[in-house]
């Protein structure tokens, strides 16, 4: 087996790909390919949430004589968390702009702001769930609440995973700076974040707004 040759340009992947026009092209292709792969993963996540939405919509009236969403949901907190998440989608975009300018500090700063907003969102969601449980609505209360907690919770879980990932990425950025690999990583996490924002818009509309109508 050949001895490993570590390229100084961190993580120049590729070469086992179609790349054949010098190393620069190679890792460009490789990183673009990973972004495309991630995009396909997001599409599968669209289907995942679509199935949860379908379940929620089908079961929305099945409260089994228990509390309904309209009775327990407090829209004010939800409105706040909606705007928090919207803003974080924007700030994650700003971090990409900073990256394109080549500013490592700006990139990490705006990523940190995004992560803090995300953490605030999760905090509000946990508070909301605790309030609901306190009011007597748990995942086992009725089909409606099962679907509610699963749909909203799955989104929350995605945000939480994004947070862990973002922190890990900030550490890598501070250590390695802006390289083709970290650029790609920032690119896909910002895609992920925008995607979660879009999912939330539909959660907000279908679960909350239509729930209190």
């Amino acid at each position, binding site marked *: 087996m050949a001895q490993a040759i570590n390229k100084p340009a961190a993580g120049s992947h590729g070469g086992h790909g179609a790349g054949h026009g010098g190393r*620069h092209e190679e890792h460009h292709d490789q990183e673009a390919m990973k*972004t495309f792969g991630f995009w396909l993963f997001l*599409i599968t996540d669209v289907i995942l949430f679509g199935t949860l939405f*379908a379940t929620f919509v089908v079961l929305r009236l099945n409260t089994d004589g228990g509390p309904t969403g309209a009775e327990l949901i407090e829209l004010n907190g939800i409105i706040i968390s909606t705007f928090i998440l*919207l803003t974080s989608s*924007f700030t994650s975009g*700003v971090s990409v*702009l900073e990256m394109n300018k080549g500013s490592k500090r700006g990139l990490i700063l705006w990523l940190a702001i995004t992560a803090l907003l995300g953490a605030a969102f999760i905090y509000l969601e946990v508070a909301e769930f605790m309030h609901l449980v306190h009011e007597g609505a748990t995942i086992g209360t009725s089909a409606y609440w099962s679907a509610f907690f699963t749909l909203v919770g799955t989104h929350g879980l995605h945000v939480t995973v994004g947070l862990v990932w973002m922190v890990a990425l900030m550490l890598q950025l501070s250590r390695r700076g802006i390289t083709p690999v970290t650029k790609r990583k920032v690119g896909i996490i910002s895609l992920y974040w925008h995607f979660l924002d879009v999912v939330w*818009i539909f959660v907000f509309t279908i679960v909350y707004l239509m729930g209190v*109508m």
Partner: protein
Amino acid sequence: MDKHNIHAPESHGSHGGSMKSYVIGFLFSIILTIIPLVVVMNDMLNKTATTVLILLMAVLQFLVQLIFFMHIRDEEKPRFNLMALIFGLVILLTIVAGSIWIMTYNTVAS
């Protein structure tokens, strides 16, 4: 890193965009969130009209994020990202609408 990578025209869905496009997108998304809120909180329209309106706003907001934040328009040909997305949305609609259709007329259990 070198210039070529930073200003690469082939920004694969995430690297492009300018401050202007992000600000416009942000403003749009705030407006598109406030409209349904106001309509629902004040019971301005009847139920069907409200439902249609707020779903429409959500779809518009999705498009805003897609265009201004995810830069779907910048993709170079062949547009595999866009194709995958459209196919995904068709299947998504099939799952949701199909489930509602089948389960609404389901007479065995309710």
